[in-house]
């Protein structure tokens, strides 16, 4: 798979984690592909943490870039039945457990289900934005990312970069497999048959527990 295929493959698998009616917050990049792979009978409500419940695709007709933007500052739109809310209500909603799932990328994740994705000290100065709140508040935290970066594992025993949030991840989806975070550690529940279990473990610094119900990823 080339990188574009990898991203689609991951997004497609993440889509299966979402249920009809779920309120979902999507991070930038790969996560934004997820809605493309939802079954026809699954309708989710996309939340943008800067104040939109129910975002819609931007068209020439609904575009209003001065008054409606997404969490990346790009033009957005509101779907029928949606609502605009202010930041304190939006993050109350997020922290209060009213967002069913957040899907986001990661620089590093670890055996405790902690995530680092907001800063590389000395290198960039981005800011955490709403990510720390989303990780703490969303009912399900789905990390959607490539399994390795330039051949180096991103699933570590312990994150080396500053945490975005600790013990927050529900599930990790990569092109190699699906990993659930449990009290026992990271459990590989699905694998991509293009890889052997050994290859997946070799690409992972953390120790993977192999689920007794291990299935191929579809």
């Amino acid at each position, binding site marked *: 798979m080339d990188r574009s295929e990898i991203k689609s493959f991951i997004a497609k698998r993440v889509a299966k984690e979402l249920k009809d009616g779920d309120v979902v917050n999507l991070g930038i990049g790969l996560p934004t592909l997820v809605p493309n792979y939802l079954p026809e009978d699954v309708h989710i409500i996309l939340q943008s943490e800067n*104040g939109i419940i129910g975002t819609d695709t931007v068209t020439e007709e609904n575009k209003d870039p*001065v008054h409606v933007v997404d969490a*990346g*500052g790009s033009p957005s739109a509101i779907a029928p039945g949606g609502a605009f809310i202010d*930041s304190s209500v939006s993050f109350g909603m997020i922290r209060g457990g009213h967002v069913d799932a957040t899907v986001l990328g990661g620089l590093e994740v670890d055996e405790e289900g902690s995530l680092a994705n907001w800063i590389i000290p000395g290198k960039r100065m*981005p800011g*955490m*934005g*709403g990510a720390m709140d989303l990780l703490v508040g969303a009912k399900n935290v789905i990390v959607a990312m490539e399994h390795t970066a330039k051949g180096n594992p991103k699933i570590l025993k312990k994150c080396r970069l*500053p945490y975005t949030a600790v013990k927050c991840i529900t599930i990790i989806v990569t092109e190699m497999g699906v990993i659930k975070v449990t009290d026992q550690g990271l459990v590989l529940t699905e694998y991509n048959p293009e890889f052997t279990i050994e290859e997946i473990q070799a690409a992972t610094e953390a120790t993977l527990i192999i689920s007794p119900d291990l299935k191929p990823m579809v």
Partner: protein
Amino acid sequence: MAKFVSVEEAVALIPDGASIMFGGFMGCGSAHKFIDALSKSGKKDLTVISNDASMPGGPLGEEFYGIAKLVHNRQIKKLIATHVGLNPEVATQSMQEGTLEVVLIPQGSMAEMIRAGGSGLGGVLTPTGVGTIVEDNPYCLGKQTINGREYLLIAPLRADFAVIAGYKIDKAGNVWYKGNTSNFNIVMATAADTVIAEAEVVVEIGEIAPEDVRTPGVFVDYVVEGGKYNG
């Protein structure tokens, strides 16, 4: 009660060194006319509280959008924000030149800190940031365990001025926000000694139903008519 003034009169209220909250999210919901005038005013050493530093290129072709103008003109001494990654001049001024101090705060915590500052609460107890370097943030006053869960105690936030932007503002200063421009404007309007509100459209009393007012006029000290924003 809200007083209607020109943008020049409003900018003249701001002394060098003032702390100012600016509503808006990447420029969406910012007081563009006021910020433009402030950026040309030469006012300096400002402490700015804002979700972000906006960005150089605006949606209608602006060279600098929203408070990116103030960053570009080096009027800001300290910036308290949640995300500054889309404005590369912030990293230049803070990391390379050391002329701009930046304090980063999680977005939900910042909204609550400002709300606490405006509503007389002693602080915010949030699970956000536990176990992260936010614990070392100057606004983090400690960690508390309540009912078995850890929370950070974060200080309330207030400023000398809040500069907010509404779409419709009536003659009593009541504000109605279009789209998702309300973002930080609503909490900021409660948490500053002086509140300046910029309207795209000034309307008569009654044109905003009392139920649909989002920032009551009693919170607004000055109103500036900015006109419909078109870049």
